[in-house]
């Protein structure tokens, strides 16, 4: 087993990043507290960046992320709608690496909580004084009978971006004229509550251009969903007669998926799809389970004030993996939680000032080109949950100019938050 330290990064990183890391005196570094961050998404990227930035070299920060290019889930629906290129949702870690974060492209395989080491798939281990765990979500493939990793190649969940999203787009584009697209949203709680309904909107937009007689059937395991009246008003306005949303009380529970036959059976009916997206129930990313950070529901309980794991005070869990209700699981929430965790970690390791945590979230969604809507809230840390102090949501019947402005704002947000995460 190899122990990774700053001295070995030159063999792992690109030259520029390694030079930055090695440019600092080793003796000073040896005395530095070590923070390791698992997962380079909206939570992990932000946490690593803010700890490095705000500690001004006082903390040794290592980010462990297997991908060299991170494709954001947020805005992937706009790619499905044909409004943006897939490449525009990709971000590298080059800026983080030059801003004081040691970036290790490897898979965090397990956590030794007693020895405070992260074990990597390569066999190396990385010591930490504080660990930030931000692994996102994993799918509960077996939550829907017949669904599996293999079935997801025929009926993509496309809920972690990447090639699944590209696959889904190709399948929708190749549907026969007048064909049927079936969307199966997940049950609560799940990543990006308005996401399935923005996906429906963007696929409807794509079909309206390329296959206007096609239909979309939504087999929802829920009775209601985020921004429901706004989406349904928008579907009627932009895609009249195309989208049929069926709550579980009408469509019935899904009791079998046959990905080869492209059929979805419910209690009451069998639906034949020409293309489908099936998003199963979700749970915290795998390492959170291996490390014993999850509860019986598969998510990680935390202390809201600091984002520390309820199971281990040396570990902070942020983003979609943690239980941060009333905050939704979103990139914006993860970014907000990361900043609170970063402040708490710096305070614990360097004695820097710690302020009362504040959290916020806004989720923008696009119904059609230039028809943007949003929902958001501010939160404080309660004793055992995030408490919403105030909130807002777009209204039905808003004029086109406001909806266009909301869309343009979302584009600005994407630009802003990706710089806040990836530097």
């Amino acid at each position, binding site marked *: 087993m190899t122990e990774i330290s700053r001295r070995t990064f030159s063999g792992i990183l690109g030259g520029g990043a390694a030079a930055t890391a090695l440019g600092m005196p080793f003796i000073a570094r040896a005395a530095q507290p070590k923070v390791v961050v698992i997962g380079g998404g909206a939570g992990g990227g932000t946490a690593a960046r803010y700890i490095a930035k705000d500690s001004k070299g006082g903390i040794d920060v290592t980010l462990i992320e297997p991908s060299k290019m991170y494709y954001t889930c947020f805005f992937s629906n706009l790619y499905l709608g044909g409004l943006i290129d897939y490449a525009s949702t990709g971000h590298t870690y080059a800026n983080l690496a030059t801003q004081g974060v040691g970036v290790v492209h490897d898979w965090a395989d397990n956590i030794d909580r007693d020895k405070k080491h992260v074990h990597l798939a390569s066999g190396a281990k990385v010591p930490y004084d504080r660990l930030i765990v931000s692994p996102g979500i994993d799918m509960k493939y077996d939550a829907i009978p017949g669904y599996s990793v293999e079935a997801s190649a025929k009926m993509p969940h496309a809920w972690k971006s990447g090639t699944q999203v590209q696959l889904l787009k190709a399948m929708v584009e190749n549907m026969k004229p007048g064909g049927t697209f079936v969307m199966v949203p997940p049950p609560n709680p799940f990543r990006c509550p308005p996401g399935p309904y923005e996906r429906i909107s963007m696929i409807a937009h794509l079909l309206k251009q390329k296959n206007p007689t096609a239909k979309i059937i939504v087999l929802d395991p829920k009775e209601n969903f985020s921004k429901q009246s706004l989406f349904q008003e928008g579907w009627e306005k932009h895609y009249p007669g195309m989208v049929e949303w069926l709550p579980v009380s009408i469509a019935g529970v899904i009791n079998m998926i046959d990905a080869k036959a492209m059929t979805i059976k419910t209690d009451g009916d069998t639906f034949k799809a020409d293309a489908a997206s099936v998003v199963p129930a979700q749970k915290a990313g795998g390492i959170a389970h291996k490390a014993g950070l999850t509860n019986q529901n598969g998510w990680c309980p935390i202390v809201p004030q600091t984002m520390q794991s309820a199971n281990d005070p040396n570990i902070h869990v942020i983003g979609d993996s943690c239980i941060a209700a009333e905050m939704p699981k979103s990139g914006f929430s993860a970014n907000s939680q990361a900043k609170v965790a970063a402040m708490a970690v710096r305070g614990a390791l360097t004695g820097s000032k710690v302020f009362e945590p504040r959290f916020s979230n*806004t989720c923008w969604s696009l119904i059609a080109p230039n028809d943007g809507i*949003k929902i*958001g809230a*501010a939160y404080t840390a309660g004793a055992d949950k995030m408490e919403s102090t105030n909130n807002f949501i777009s209204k039905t019947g808003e004029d086109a100019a406001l909806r266009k402005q909301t869309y343009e*704002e979302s584009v600005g947000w994407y630009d*802003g*938050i990706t710089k*806040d995460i990836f530097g």
Partner: protein
Amino acid sequence: MAAILKLVWGLVHLITLSTASTTAVTAADREFGEYLSSQCTACHQLSGNANGIPTIVGLEPLTFVTVMQAYRRRELGNEAMQNIASTLSDDDIKSLAAYFASIKPKTE
């Protein structure tokens, strides 16, 4: 662009009318402002780049305070901004104003 012009117009209007002109921001705690600013930087870029969301770096403190108080009173009409402003006290706003005034926009 229209949104920015609308905001600028709103600023001129509000600065004329506001009683905030007597508000001192010099005593603000810059460190606290920097902490609070992390809520803003999820959208507003520290580089000064503005793309659908206006830049707030390098703003005169009085302008910043006037605008945020107007959002808090719901006199400026962006719900996300009204929402965040309603969580901020006068001291919070002054600290943010001092922090953002101290940041120089970069040209990329």
